[in-house]
């Protein structure tokens, strides 16, 4: 009888040992539990940061995607993390972009396809404003099909950063310019596209 209990005990211990190994090898849990953890791991895995998070933004049209706006020394970034199979994993944009102080406004953008089926593209346009006079940043775009203007606009607050998020058919809008305006609406900074 004693021998039987010994075997049962050993077998249960083995089960827990194997479960621990499976946990440690991340077989079923490839991601992190929180978006913050995934963001931190993505940065340290890229040898950047740790950045100071100035804003955490959940993408309005995709709840499984979170963006961290942040700065680190002379760089700024908008790091995306995504929820996959229940865990948070790194998306794009972990790398810092240099803040060009003499220009007053530094920006970067990326477009990524949202599905393999159609041409829907997710756009992330972000930047850092170092010129104190710039209180509003606007991205002027036109819908190619209708010819209607479709601008994006954001007021600059204490965190100096702006973020435009939208989804569209790839190449469906024409970008005119990125402008930085002062309190009276005068153009302080302008970058023309196309």
């Amino acid at each position, binding site marked *: 009888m004693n021998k039987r209990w010994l075997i049962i005990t050993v077998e249960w211990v083995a089960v827990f040992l194997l479960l621990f190994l499976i946990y440690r090898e991340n077989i079923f849990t490839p991601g992190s539990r929180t978006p913050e953890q995934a963001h931190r791991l993505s940065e*340290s895995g*890229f040898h950047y940061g740790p950045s100071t998070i100035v804003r955490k933004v959940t993408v309005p049209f995709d709840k499984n995607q979170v963006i961290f706006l942040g700065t680190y*020394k002379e760089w700024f970034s908008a790091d995306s993390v995504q929820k996959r199979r229940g865990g948070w994993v*790194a998306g794009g944009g972990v790398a810092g972009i240099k803040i060009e102080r003499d220009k007053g406004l530094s920006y970067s953008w990326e477009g990524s396809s949202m599905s393999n089926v159609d041409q829907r593209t997710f756009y992330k346009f972000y930047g850092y404003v170092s010129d104190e006079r710039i209180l509003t940043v606007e991205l002027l775009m036109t819908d190619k099909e209708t010819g209607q203007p479709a601008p994006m606009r954001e007021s600059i607050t204490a965190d100096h950063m702006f973020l435009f998020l939208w989804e569209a058919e790839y190449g469906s809008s024409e970008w005119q310019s990125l402008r930085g305006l002062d309190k009276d609406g005068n153009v302080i900074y302008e970058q023309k596209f196309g």
Partner: protein
Amino acid sequence: MRAMNLVFTLLRRFILAALVIILIVHYISKVTNDWDRGNGDTIASLQADGEVVAISIDKSFPIDNDTFTANAVYVTPKQIMVTYEFHSKQTKGVWTFPAMSLKLITPDGQELLSHSAGSNGTTWGSIGYISFDVPDKPVGSAKLVYDIYGRYGELEIPLVKAGDGT
């Protein structure tokens, strides 16, 4: 009672077997993933340039908690290729080592341009190569520098005959 015991024993052994199978499959895929992850093909293709001089380096510098190791340098009349290994302690959220961030600088200050790089991910990090142009004037060595986002690492690369046209 006896029947119950039998059911429990079967259940326990079934769980054990299932876990063992999951782990075995995982470890096998891990090991096979690391096979053929060398720079062998790239090194062989250097023969097309002409004479290849291979010099072992085996020097490292740390980047945060990780380690960059330059394995060897291959000098041909057309290029200087450095092979490397990158060992990462982190297991989640790891990015491929950005080899294009590496600079090769000669003692007289010329920064050699890089046109190609390649890497393969492994279970412990990545393994790869990066090619640079040959210098204008022949040099006996050059400095390989990693300098980005406040991290800095450098090591000396011996270069025999690089750029002297022989």
